[in-house]
């Protein structure tokens, strides 16, 4: 049974700049399942994802993170990325002078240039056309030749992040508020893309959100609700409309007594 557990946290405690954010969290994520991690502002949702990715400001003070049953606390961000953990940033930093298309060719195996690595920043490579077609699908063809995250709109950032994370062919991906700042059309594009991933049952999808917009587009297997750095509720799809109606405070008060 435990064979299909991909990732779990055990009594995970995390602090940022000396301030405790997560106070002992136990979560499991199974292969090919879709999870929603919900909770009010400042409940620790993003911290959870960033800690699992290994970002240095997020200091683990207790507990463990297991990936394929092995602790990854000692692994670097790079190693975690290479073992199949991906995190779509909520506000990714600008990288001047690095074009989105060149960057994707550099980091995503699917688009890796057949040209030798010496010339990857060069003018053109043959594999670009395939990349451009895929950009088109997420509506970010216009960003191809722009510096990474430089002046991208909110919606463009989300779609560019989703594109990058997907292209890395991860085993588990954390999407940090993939629906915030999206207009309805963008939301539909993102939702459709996520639904397609879900249908393949290959990638474990963890969606961090405080509202339900994107969740309307795909079925979630499990809902985790965090509050004040603790896991306070485990539920499923059917809880979401109730949650929306009542709000976190009332919902949690009623459900957890």
């Amino acid at each position, binding site marked *: 049974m435990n064979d299909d557990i991909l990732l779990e946290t055990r009594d995970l405690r995390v602090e940022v700049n000396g301030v405790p954010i997560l106070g002992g969290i136990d979560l499991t994520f199974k292969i090919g399942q879709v999870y929603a991690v919900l909770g009010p502002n400042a409940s620790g949702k993003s911290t959870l994802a960033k800690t699992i990715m290994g970002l240095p400001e997020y200091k683990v003070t207790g507990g463990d993170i297991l990936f394929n049953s092995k602790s990854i606390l000692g692994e670097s*961000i*790079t190693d975690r*990325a290479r073992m199949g953990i991906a995190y779509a940033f909520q506000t990714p930093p600008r990288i*001047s*002078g*690095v074009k989105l298309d060149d*960057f994707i060719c550099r980091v995503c195996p699917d688009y890796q240039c057949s040209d030798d690595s010496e010339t990857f*920043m060069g003018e053109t490579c043959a594999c670009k056309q395939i990349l451009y077609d895929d950009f088109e699908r997420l509506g970010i063809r216009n960003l191809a030749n722009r510096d990474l995250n430089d002046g991208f709109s909110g919606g463009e950032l989300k779609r560019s992040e989703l594109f990058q994370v997907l292209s890395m062919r991860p085993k588990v991906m954390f999407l940090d508020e993939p629906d915030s700042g999206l207009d309805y059309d963008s939301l539909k594009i993102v939702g459709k893309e996520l639904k397609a991933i879900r249908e393949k049952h290959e990638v474990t999808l963890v969606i961090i959100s405080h509202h339900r917009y994107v969740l309307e587009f795909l079925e979630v297997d499990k809902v985790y609700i965090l509050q004040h750095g603790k896991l306070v509720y485990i539920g499923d799809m059917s809880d979401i409309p109730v949650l929306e109606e009542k709000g976190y405070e009332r919902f949690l008060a009623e459900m957890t007594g």
Partner: protein
Amino acid sequence: MPSDNKKKRAHSAREKPSQYGSDIDLENYNYSTSKPNDLESLDELSEQDRILTQEVGFDPSQERVSATFMQFDNESFLADVLIQQEGLEVMPTDQALQKYDWLHDYLWNAVQVDTDKYTARSELENYSGYFIRATAGSKIKMPVQSCLIMKKNQSVQNVHNIVIAEEGSELHIITGCATPSNVEQSLHLGVSEFYVKKKARLTFTMVHRWSEMTDVRPRSATIVEENGTFISSYAILSPLKSIQTFPKVRLVEPGAKADLYSVVYGSKKSKYDIGGLLSLEAPNSSGKVISRSIATDECEIIARGDLIGLSGETRGRLECDGLLVSNTAVIRAVPMLAARAEGSELSHEATVGKVGAEQLSYLMSRGLNEEEATSLIIRGFVKLKVPDLPPALQKSIDDAIKMSMEGSM
């Protein structure tokens, strides 16, 4: 100016220290006394020299160039214009001065001979260097390449270059200066004077690679006439003992334009003092001085930029950006703006910072390791939008960064 007058002025400035940079005792070096020999052809280049020249953007196969000039120390030369190029002249400066009387009016015209002890010394010793001219209306599409190599210990390479783009001409020059890393104590004195006539367009790209014991004191200046364009890109990628240079560009007639770009990749204990001055002297003249500095190891970089608006209806822009990749390196950005006429619009931006931790984490989360991520950030940082930057030079910059990253991390 008669030549004995020049000598007189040079003598008067023999002891005059430079405005910037550490002082060098010019008596510690040997100056060339003999006349240089001709180098028969580039086939005579040793494999080692061939690689060295390629590192500064030189193409020994001469495939995509219109002419080649090459010089070793002060001793041997090659000046070769590929036959089909009409309107292009490339020859050693001393030969050109013998051939053309009028050229004496261009010698020490843009650069003043009594600027400091280095210009003075350059005039007083034997010098060589190149004269490159595009005649009126000639469009020389392929670049002229030049390479100056300095191999002797304790010696001085003293060059005086004169470049003239006549009215309506187009000329591109790629020049490299290099010293093999085993050369001990040497000095490069380089005087370069550029003249861009009406509606002419001159691009000048220069790459430096020196040894750790070389001091370098280039002195160059440019005069741009009506609607002429001068674009200069400079890259220094190697460690060295010290360099101080502060090229001046004067836009003397309406519509003149100049852009100066520089990339300094500082390493080891090297001292770089590199600047650029743009003097906007006529209406509708405009230009930019843009520098990117990366400081690694224990190097010290001073990036100066100076804009002077002497006429109304002028526009100048200055950008000095520095990236620190070491706790023991220093970058000082010194932007200077001086408007002396109403309607001269001058602006600047100067930033000095470290590689952002957030940027690193972000790139690492996409599977790059720390070294690759740092290198990508640096490469992005120096990726200037330089018009006509030869791909070979871009590659040379990329390679230098890559090599240095591998060596230091």
